[in-house]
């Protein structure tokens, strides 16, 4: 995907979020560390542009909720979580770069529910690469990318990697 493709996909997802929720009232965007966070911010910019409303953006670290915790020899770094508003009664749009097995999303759902009882949680991803291991499906998808299980999908963003783009690496 080129930088232009990424931009268009995010613009379309923003419109879909507005359409699906009939506006952006009661909405909270929550980006999953690392690359879900800049994506959530970019979606928030567009929602502000289209609807004139500043939607709160949260940052979620799922390290402590992973199901493979304790199965590695060195513990992964725990990042910070910032949820700026009470999530109870809100519609949360969870944002991540790549949807793969669904295990990260499962962990994120557990983590979010520790902060309160949202009215609904929706899922937005830039890339859906398939190979789900859990019954999880996205509500908003930038691009479906069929991959083999051995391949890696690398999402690059200017905030974290200097430039936008999506590459398949094997």
């Amino acid at each position, binding site marked *: 995907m080129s930088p232009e493709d990424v931009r268009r996909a995010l613009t379309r997802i923003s419109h879909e979020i507005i359409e699906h929720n009939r506006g952006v009232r009661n909405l909270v965007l929550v980006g999953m560390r690392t690359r879900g966070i800049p994506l959530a911010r970019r979606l928030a910019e567009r929602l502000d542009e289209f609807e004139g409303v500043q939607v709160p953006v949260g940052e979620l*670290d799922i*390290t*402590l*909720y992973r199901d493979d*915790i*304790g*199965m*590695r*020899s*060195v*513990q992964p*770094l*725990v*990042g*910070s*979580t*910032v949820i700026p508003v009470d999530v109870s009664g809100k519609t949360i749009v969870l944002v991540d770069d790549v949807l793969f097995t669904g295990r990260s999303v499962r962990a994120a759902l*557990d*983590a979010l529910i*520790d*902060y*309160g009882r949202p009215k609904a949680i929706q899922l937005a991803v830039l890339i859906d690469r398939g190979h789900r291991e859990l019954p999880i499906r996205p509500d908003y998808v930038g691009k479906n990318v069929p991959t083999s299980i051995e391949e890696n999908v690398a999402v690059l963003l200017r905030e974290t990697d200097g430039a936008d783009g999506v590459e398949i690496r094997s």
Partner: protein
Amino acid sequence: MSVVVGEKIGAAAVQQGPRRHCLDLDDYSAEEIEHVLNTAEAMQEILARPVKKAPGLRGKMVVNCFYESSTRTRVSFEVAAKNLSADVVNFSAGGSSVEKGESLIDTAKTLVALGANVIIIRHSMAGAPHVVARNTGAAVINAGDGRHAHPSQALLDLYTMRARIGRLSGLKVAIVGDALHSRVARSNVHGLTRMGAEVILCGPATLLPVKLQLPGMRFEHDLDAIIGEVDVVMPLRIQKERAEGGLIPSLREYRQRWGLTAARMARMRPDALIMHPGPMNPGVEIDPEVAVAPQSVIESQVTNGVAIRMALLYLLAGVAM
């Protein structure tokens, strides 16, 4: 098993491969200390949530094994382990098979056979946690051994200083009082100097550990000579036995020369911090009004202790055996 004060017990010899134990800070690199402090920062966020619980250590058993009395350290470790969803068992020597003569190693092995993944141990003998670490498969955290080390206390002190002042490197920290008998002082000297801070151990000559010599630390007898230039003042608890044993003339005279009084506080830099590892002797090493002054961070030390202990438990208990 008793160790001469100032001699190195050799935590490094017990550790092989990825870190399994936290026995003292002398074998922690600056990067490793930094990693613990950063992890504690993430843990602090959990403490601010409505539901103060994350599943990071679900299914792990943590045993609090205290051969010496303690309030804040024991409760702090228990709260930390529970916040991470571990199962916590509290064991104290009184009322256990220790009274029937069971040895430390046998007790520890029994606890591991019962499923302990982490043993948190406090013992009056320096080196007791090292013995447990060598003889069991559990991760061991030293919660204070004799006069030797109290690494989790030093880490929470470092964390509190970094959170309040924004850095550790270049800080001037005065630890005042009975550093000779203090495991808190010893671990803080290791941790602070490793992070590039300067430590001044200040007190009467009879209470300074003159054998402890590390780059970045020095001794000073006159508190009034340094009080105006330090970033942190940490008075240590003076035990009444020290006066009875002839190490200090009297508690009153101690207060006059080394007590953190309101008059001395007034001569501190306005941004300097007042810390105390607790429990306090108000009116001896610290005046009651000083302990609750705006510069005092004694209460946040206690709260930060939970975050630091969550970080230690997560980093040590979570790894595959």
